[in-house]
C-alpha cells in the first residue's frame, strides 16, 4: 500500500530540458568564451599553492616598483611583491567573494521568495514590503553601510554584498512561484494531500530554478565588482592578503611611477566579470523555453 507521500506525480522529464539547454549553451559562442574565462581563473585560483610562483606577501626592498621583466612577468608593487603572484592569489579572494556572497543571497533570499509566493496573504505582504524597501536602497550604498558597521574584512564584505543582493532573489523567486503555483501539477500535488513543504521543494523549486540560476550567474559578476569596490575603499580584504580591489587601492597612489600596478588587477576584474556576464546571457537564452 502506498502512502500519500510516496505518490509520485508524473512531471515532464527533467533530463530532456537540461540536455536541450546544454546543447543550446554549447552552440552559443559568447557563453563558451565566458565559461572558458571563468574556468581559467577558477583553475588559477585553485592551483595557486601548487604553482611555481613567489610568496604573494614576500617583500623585497631591492625590487620596489620594478617594471614587468623576465623575473617578474607583471612587475612588482610598492614594497617589492610579485604582482603576478598576488594576482593569482587575489583571484581566490575575488572569485570566492563573488560566489559566496551570491550563495548567501540565494540561500537566504530564495526560501523567503518561495514562502511569500506560495502562501500569499499577510506573510507575502510583509515579505514584499520589506523587499521593496531594500530594493529602494542602492546596492553599493547598502553594501558600504553594512560593511562599515560590521567592520572591514573579506567575510563581512561578503555578508554585506550577499544581504544587499538578497532582495532581488526574493522578488524574482516570488514572481516565479506565483506563475508556477497555479499549474496543474501543483494543483494535483495539493489535491492528493501532499504537505506544503513537499510541494514547495519537489514541485515548485525545480520549476523556478532556471531563472534563479541565470540571475545568480549575472549577480556573481556584480558581486565581484562590489567586492573589488569595497576592497578598493579598504572595507574588504585587509592587507597584506591580496585581492584585486585592494591592489588597485594601492596602485592608484603610484600611477605615474608604476602604471603596471594598476593595469593587471583591473584587467583581471574586467575579464572575470565579462566572463560571468557572457555566461549569464548564454544561460538565459539556453534556459528560455520560448527560444527554440
Amino acid at each position: 500500500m502506498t502512502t500519500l507521500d510516496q505518490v509520485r506525480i508524473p512531471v515532464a522529464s527533467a533530463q530532456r530540458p537540461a540536455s536541450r539547454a546544454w546543447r543550446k549553451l554549447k552552440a552559443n559562442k559568447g557563453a563558451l568564451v565566458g565559461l572558458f574565462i571563468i574556468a581559467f581563473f577558477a583553475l588559477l585560483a585553485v592551483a595557486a599553492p601548487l604553482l611555481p610562483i613567489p610568496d604573494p606577501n614576500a617583500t623585497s626592498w631591492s625590487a620596489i616598483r620594478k617594471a614587468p621583466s623576465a623575473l617578474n612577468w607583471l612587475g612588482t608593487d610598492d614594497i617589492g611583491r610579485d604582482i603576478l603572484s598576488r594576482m593569482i592569489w587575489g583571484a581566490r579572494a575575488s572569485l570566492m567573494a563573488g560566489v559566496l556572497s551570491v550563495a548567501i543571497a540565494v540561500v537566504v533570499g530564495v526560501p523567503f521568495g518561495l514562502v511569500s509566493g506560495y502562501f500569499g496573504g499577510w506573510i507575502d505582504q510583509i515579505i514584499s514590503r520589506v523587499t521593496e524597501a531594500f530594493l529602494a536602497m542602492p546596492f553599493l550604498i547598502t553594501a558600504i553601510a553594512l560593511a562599515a558597521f560590521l567592520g572591514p574584512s573579506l567575510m563581512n564584505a561578503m555578508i554585506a554584498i550577499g544581504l544587499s543582493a538578497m532582495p532581488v532573489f526574493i522578488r524574482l523567486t516570488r514572481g516565479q512561484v506565483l506563475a508556477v503555483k497555479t499549474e496543474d501539477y501543483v494543483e494535483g500535488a495539493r489535491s492528493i494531500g501532499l504537505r506544503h513543504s513537499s510541494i514547495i521543494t519537489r514541485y515548485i523549486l525545480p520549476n523556478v530554478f532556471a531563472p534563479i540560476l541565470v540571475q545568480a550567474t549575472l549577480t556573481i559578476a556584480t558581486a565581484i565588482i562590489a567586492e573589488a569596490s569595497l576592497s578598493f575603499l579598504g572595507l574588504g580584504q585587509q592587507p597584506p592578503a591580496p585581492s584585486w580591489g585592494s591592489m588597485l587601492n594601492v596602485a592608484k597612489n603610484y600611477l605615474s611611477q608604476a602604471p603596471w600596478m594598476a593595469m593587471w588587477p583591473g584587467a583581471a576584474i574586467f575579464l572575470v566579470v565579462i566572463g560571468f556576464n557572457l555566461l549569464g546571457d548564454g544561460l538565459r537564452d539556453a534556459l528560455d523555453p520560448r527560444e527554440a
Partner: protein
Amino acid sequence: MFSYIVKRLLVAIPTLLIISVFVFSLQKLLPGDPVLAMAGEERDPQLIEYLREKYRLNDPVPIQYIHWLGSAVQGDLGMSLRTNQPVLTLVAQKLPVTVQLAIMSMLFAFAIGIPMGILAAVKKNTALDYVANVVALSGLSIPNFWLGIMLILLVSVHLGWLPASGYRPFFEDPLNSIKTMLMPAFVLGNALAATLMRHTRSAMVSVLSADYIRTARAKGLAERSVVLEHSFRNAVLPIVTLSALLFGELLAGAVLTEQIFTIPGFGKLIVDAVFTRDYAVVQGVVLCTAVGFILMNLVADVLYVVLNPRMRASL
C-alpha cells in the same frame, strides 16, 4: 494626476518606515558600547550615566527608534562627529556637486547609448550590431574605478589634456567646472550608456517589426523618417522611465567615481564618514539616498503616465 501623485507618495510611506528601521538598526550592529568609547579611559560612572540619559540609551530599543525617527522626520539626522555640523547640512552642501556629476553623466549616456541602440536595432544581426553589443557588454563589465584610474593615466598623466582631480563649482567657474567633471562623467556614465543602448535596441527591434512601421515603409516614407519619427517616438517611453530610475542609481554610483577624482560630493562624504567612524553621517547618507531613490521612482511612474496616452486616459 494630482491624486495619482498623492496616492504614490502615500504608498512610499511604509517603504520609508522599513528603511528607517534598517538605518536605525545599523548603529546596533556596532561592536562594543558606544558610551564607553565616548567616556574615555577614566570611565567616570557619573559621566557614563549622563551620556546614557543624554542619548536615551537607557530606554528600550523601540522607544529609542521612535525618538530617532521623530528627530529624523523634523530634519534632525544628528551631528557629524568629524565636522560638528548637522548631518542634513552636510548632505545639503554635498548634494549639488553629485547632482551636477549625475546630470553630466546622464547627458553623456544619452548621447552615446541611445544613438548606438538605434543603430544596432536598425542594423540588426550585422557587424555593427555585433560591435555595439560587445561595446555595451564591456561597458557593463568594466569596474568604473579602474576605468577612472586608466583614464587618469592616459588623459591626465600621459597626454595632460584634463586635470586628474579637483572640483570647481559650476556657478563660480562654469568652464573649468565642466572641464574637471568631463572624465568623472564619462566614467560614471559609461555603464549607464551600455544599459541605455541595450534597452533602446530592444525597444526599437520590437517597434521596427510592428505593422504600422511596415505600413509607413509601404507608403514610401524615407527610412530616416520611419526610424526617427515613427519608431523612436514609440520606443522612447520605456527609455525615459528607465532613465529616471537610473538617475537614482547614479547618485549611488558616484561613490567610487568621486573617490578617484577627489570630487567633494555625496559619495565622498559617505566614504570619508566610514573611515572616520562618523556613523551618524553614514546613516544620514543612506537614508537620504533611499529617499532620493524613491523620489526618482515616483518621477519614473509619473513620466510613464504623462508620456503614455493610454495610461493618461485611464486615470
